[in-house]
């Protein structure tokens, strides 16, 4: 282990212990780590967005020769004046920080929302609505070489009935009574099975993260002893 790696390991371990101290109760060590984390997270995202997107795709295309001093590849491409438009909208977004001009940020927001609405409209329609309806068109009576496959038939029935009844539960324009009420009741049960499975999987995920941190602390303890 090099000296730099050792310093990284020690800082990481101490910050880990500071965060874990919250399990005992809220304390200044935890608060320090929490506030430090917020600061470096905001800066991390800013730096990556600046060097990976703004410089090559915006500034580097508006003023290639100027940006070429720090990003040599930018100078290899011709200028693309169209990129002044997103730059202008980006600056309008920052107008939010200046109270008298804050209303101008709506223009940038309008473009972002228009883009998201247009893209999501078609993609959700294709993948999450039509795609899901299509995937649910399964045979309720499945046959195999030995005749009727009762297991597969029952499974498909559970899938289709569970889906329709769960959708019925989400339909609030009709009172949940009678046959519709019974269907919606079955829908709740289907959803409960899904939520139970989700709980089980959430446990798995969180435990995995804990194992990861303990491995890190283990390496640190190994360095001490």
């Amino acid at each position: 282990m090099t000296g730099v790696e050792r310093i990284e390991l020690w800082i990481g371990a101490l910050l880990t212990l500071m965060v874990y101290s919250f399990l005992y109760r809220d304390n200044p060590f935890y608060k320090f780590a929490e506030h430090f984390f917020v600061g470096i997270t905001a800066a991390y995202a800013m730096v990556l967005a600046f060097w990976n997107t703004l410089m090559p795709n915006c500034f580097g295309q508006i003023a290639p020769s100027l940006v070429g001093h720090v990003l040599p590849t930018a100078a290899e491409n011709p200028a693309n004046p169209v990129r002044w438009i997103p730059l202008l909208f980006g600056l309008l977004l920052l107008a939010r920080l200046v109270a008298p001009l804050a209303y101008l940020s709506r223009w940038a927001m309008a473009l972002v929302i228009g883009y998201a609405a247009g893209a999501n409209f078609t993609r959700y329609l294709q993948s999450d609505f039509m795609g899901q309806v299509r995937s649910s068109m399964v045979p309720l009576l499945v046959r195999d070489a030995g005749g009727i496959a009762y297991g597969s038939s029952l499974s498909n029935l559970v899938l289709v009935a569970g889906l329709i009844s769960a959708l019925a539960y989400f339909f609030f324009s009709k009172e949940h009574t009678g046959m519709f009420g019974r269907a919606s009741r079955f829908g709740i049960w289907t959803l409960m099975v899904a939520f139970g499975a989700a709980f089980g999987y959430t446990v798995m995920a969180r435990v995995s993260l804990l194992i990861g941190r303990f491995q890190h602390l283990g390496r640190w303890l190994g360095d001490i002893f």
Partner: protein
Amino acid sequence: MSLLDRMKRIDRRILFLLMAAGVAIPLLFRPTLTVHPSPIVSRVFDKIESLPEGSKILMSFDYGPSTVPENQPMAEAIARHVLRRRLKLYMVSAWTTGQAQADLLIESVMRTDFTDRVYGEDWVHLGYKAGNQGMINAIFGAMRNLYTTDAAGTNVDAIPMMRDVQSLRDMDLIVDIASGFPGVKEWIQFAGDPGNIPVAGGVTAVEALLLYPYYPRQLLGLMGGLQGAAEYEAALVAKYPEYRDDSKALQIMGPQYVAHLLIVVFILIGNATYFAERRRQKRGRIAGGRS
């Protein structure tokens, strides 16, 4: 105070300590366990196994340090498999933290096990781009519109394996290693479905169940959580035994199982306490009614 009252009022910090011990102790002993690949994981393995040499695989790193124990082993297993089979690996990221995770993978896989594979000819690291689903939509139509350089600042036109790549449609498979938004869902919506490109996923356990409705028509296969990663490693080791010692997920399945059982015990004790308390209250009401 009765045992029931004591169980009811147990300090949460004792539960925390038990949980910590439940993970730490098995981690010390590292029990070896057998894991068998499930069909949903095998489909990803079989697809990569069946692709002809030189096929293009795009791997997106859409996760961060918070889910490394789950996501990094799957990413490493996929990268090993792809390079072992002499397929071409294109690495991108829609998460700010994804680029750093790809860098770590380069150190642990490319610079360790595949030093003979050439950067720019066998694998390339294109790095992070902002925009979430907008990033996917942008490279779906024209890769160079957004990726003018790789992560190190080299012009993409100077990278041999980028010469015949115009858009995502040129990829034979997209593997997204993800832990949230944007993730596998967005790759299906913005690349897989509109371009008819096979999409496979490796996601955290929390995310895995939400993706089952896409399987198998829109989603080729899925590695869900640490178990999914371990299953892929098991398939890889079965075919290529030289990677036995690199199976990070398989090595920590022991603590994972013990923690699961501990949670089950907590649920059982919690419910036993609840029912005992309810019976005591019922008895109390009956006794109160008689008096």
